[in-house]
């Protein structure tokens, strides 16, 4: 690492406010919508101008339905609470099957100070549960604030209830990117463990109410769902385990953890691990030859960076630098095991300097930022991956990741131009 050239790269710690003019982060509404979007049996309504309603559908890969009050000048000046009440009544009339509604507050309704909580109480008295998600875009430094808010709302839905008969778990912080939930469910079902609900990849209002059916909460993404897991433990006595299904080592560890918790026969677990790893052995060696020694640059949400760096190392890649869009200090600590160059919220010019001086073989970044490294001639893998690329979790996901890395690195297009003009 010491041989690396000097790079103009500000190594910012996590948790700082964004620098004006230089941020790449999203807003609290983005975070809240990301978490709450897939919850079924709900009406989701954003109380704000039309833009928030329009864009709210593209936060997740799947355009989950979203209603909006589409505030106009009149409501901004004279207050939009009546308008919201009418909109809510109409939304319930259009969706008789809905169990309740989430009302997001965007910047405008936050600034004009609408008493949405009061309105929600009125609706609740009529038997129409309305949960307010107070997530004006400015209310946090990044989307992380929105994630936290959304989980608080979800926590409010949980009711105490009887435990399930068979061993059952909940997946917390699992967003079902490109069908991840299916893979994890498959792994767990191999052990005879049922999955009650996936927060929030695949869940519904009723499943959330009966969240306490499960014996154990599996915490998959620490940065977003940790608070929820802790709160569920203290309120309902639900234990939680930190697990990860990214990379074979982590899968084996997590499966063993589960077996110990539920007292499952060790042989069964070992058999499943062996079965999975045998599958890897069939395809991975040829991929690893192409990947080993390659240098990767990461620019993603911090929660995803650690597991990704671990998987890349298992595939033989080296992480030369990592930038998080937002995250927690613990995530950065985890990352420092893989690289010295770690920063939070790097800017576009910093990214370009990194590319220029470090010349990574592959860049892993998000969908919005992928076109810059591509334009500059670097093989780029974008996240979250589309459904056709498949999940990156579990054994088959590990193969998918290796395959996609090989695809982007060995694409012939990168041979047809000189990367350095100078």
């Amino acid at each position, binding site marked *: 690492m010491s041989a690396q050239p000097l790079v103009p790269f500000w190594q910012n710690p996590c948790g700082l406010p964004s620098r004006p003019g230089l941020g790449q982060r999203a807003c609290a509404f983005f975070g809240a919508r990301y978490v709450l979007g897939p919850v079924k049996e709900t009406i989701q309504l954003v109380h704000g101008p039309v833009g928030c309603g329009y864009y709210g559908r593209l936060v997740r890969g799947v355009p989950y339905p979203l209603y909006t009050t589409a505030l106009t000048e009149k409501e901004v000046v004279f207050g939009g609470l009546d308008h919201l009440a009418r909109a809510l009544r109409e939304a319930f009339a259009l969706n008789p099957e809905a169990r309740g509604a989430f009302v997001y507050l965007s*910047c405008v309704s936050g600034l004009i100070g609408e008493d949405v909580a009061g309105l929600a109480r009125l609706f609740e008295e009529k038997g129409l549960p309305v949960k307010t998600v107070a997530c004006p875009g400015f209310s946090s430094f990044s989307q992380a604030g929105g994630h936290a808010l959304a989980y608080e709302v979800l926590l409010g839905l949980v009711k105490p209830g009887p435990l399930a008969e068979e061993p059952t778990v909940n997946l917390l912080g699992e967003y079902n990117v490109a069908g991840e939930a299916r893979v994890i469910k498959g792994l767990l079902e191999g052990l005879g463990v049922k999955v009650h609900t996936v927060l929030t990849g695949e869940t519904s209002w009723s499943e959330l109410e009966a969240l306490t059916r499960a014996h154990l909460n599996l915490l998959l993404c620490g940065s977003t769902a940790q608070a929820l897991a802790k709160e569920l433990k203290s309120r309902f006595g639900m234990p939680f385990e930190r697990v990860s299904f990214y990379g074979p080592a982590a899968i084996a560890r997590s499966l063993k953890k589960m077996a110990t918790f539920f007292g499952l026969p060790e042989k069964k677990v070992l058999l499943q691990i062996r079965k999975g790893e045998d599958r890897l052995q069939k395809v991975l060696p040829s991929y690893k030859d192409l990947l080993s020694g390659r240098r990767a640059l990461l620019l993603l949400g911090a929660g995803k960076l650690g597991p990704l760096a671990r998987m890349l190392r298992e595939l033989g890649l080296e992480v030369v630098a990592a930038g998080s869009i937002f995250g927690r200090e613990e995530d950065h600590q985890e990352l420092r095991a893989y690289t010295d160059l770690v920063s939070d919220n790097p800017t576009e010019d910093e990214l370009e300097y990194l590319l220029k001086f470090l010349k990574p073989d592959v860049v892993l970044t998000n969908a919005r930022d992928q076109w810059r490294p591509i334009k500059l001639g670097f093989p780029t893998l974008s996240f979250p991956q589309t459904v056709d690329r498949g999940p990156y979790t579990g054994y088959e996901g590990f193969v998918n990741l290796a395959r996609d890395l090989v695809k982007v690195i060995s694409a012939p297009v990168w041979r047809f131009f000189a990367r350095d003009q100078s």
Partner: protein
Amino acid sequence: MINQVKEIPVEGITYKSLRVKKKPLLAEYVPPPPELVPRAKRAVCIDPAHTCMPLGAMWATLGVHRAIPFVQGAQGCTTYVRYTFSRIFREPATIANASFHEDAAVFGGRKNLVRGVRNLVCRYQPELIAIVTTCSSEVIGDDIHSFLDEALDLMEEELGPEVREAVKFVVVNTPSFAGSHVEGYNRACREFLKTLARKSGEAGEHVYLIPGMMTPGDIRELKHMMELMGVSHRVLFDISETLDCPLVGMPNRIPYYPPGGTPVEAFVRAGDAQAVWALSPDAGSAGAQWLERRYKVPAYVVTMPIGLRNTDHFLRSVAEATGRPIPDRLRWERGILLDAMADTLHYTMMKKVALCGDPDFVAAATRFVCELGMIPTYILVGTKSRRAEENIRQACEEYGHQPVVMNGGDQFEWEYALKNDIPDVILGHSRCVNIAREIQVPLVRFGFPVYDRVGYQREPIVGYRGGERFLARIVNAILDHQYPDDRTHQ
């Protein structure tokens, strides 16, 4: 659907047998209460067909050489737009943000603007920064101009007096609750010209074109037509070389800027223009009309040149204003379009078509589908526009059609109408995919936004050549859907 066909008949499958009748409605399906279907009677907006103003202003700014939009608002206001652009164009686009946090909501966005603008100037060395306001800064009541003065004073102290000359600033007020992205583009257009345009007295040699929210391919087609006409021209907000650029490798100078875009100087000299055309009446006419009022530049506001008559009308106005004849080459292209229309009339005549999109696109495309002999049934104009509705009515009257025009409606209303009266083809943007799938009707993508097709942004639909391609796309969609492969040629 194919796996529902039990056996493949020996003589081949006709498309008719491939199309499976829709399942009867599920028992639990409850149709929406009829009084809640029209948008005008509803408070709740379901699947809006337009987005907010800042997007239009950012779109316009990205068409200027070395220009960066600076969004005075919360971070999401940029994230979504960057994501939208990245999906449509697959290009890097630098958009800066004031990063409003709680303190900005309480104390105003002064600090954010002053520091943000300085950061941008120091790191990115732009030639122009367009400050695009959002609902939050407008509700707080940020006095952008005084903030900007302060920022300039501080930068002058820090970086020297040349900074005032090096970077130009344009302020565009775009509170999202006051209009749609179309209006945002329109306002940006006016503000850019208001702030930058001057008249030097000597007659300029260029005519100016304001394209509106056309794709890079469309703008290139416009330039092609003007070159054939031999008219020296300048396109304002020219995204054809900023949002559609070759892969180059590492640039010598960091940060990367796309090579093209309208130079700031073109805006400055706009007061001397021979004439100006606004090719999208709802997105850009404000700029053209301002030039006419202030500097007496003849302004022509024409319908977007999609299809035969619209292009004729545009070219004739160019010919009249510049005194140049329409060259044979363009007549040839027109002839090709006519030929294509005649060749394919069997597939287009009397086909029912539903349209959806921004006013300029929909108004122009309605006339084109009428020219093709199609019957427009339900037309959703995403942003309420009187001019677009007039244009649509006029075109439909000429051809004897009576479509339902939903001016400023939302997609829910339009989709409900389509479900009850299924058209043969839908012309709309990528957000119409769901309804097209549901009623099993082919969707021809056009307008804003198209993000689920590769290369759409490079394919023109304007002009004669664009019209020919647009026609081909419509006909091929119908062929794919309604005719068995082996029976298309006669």
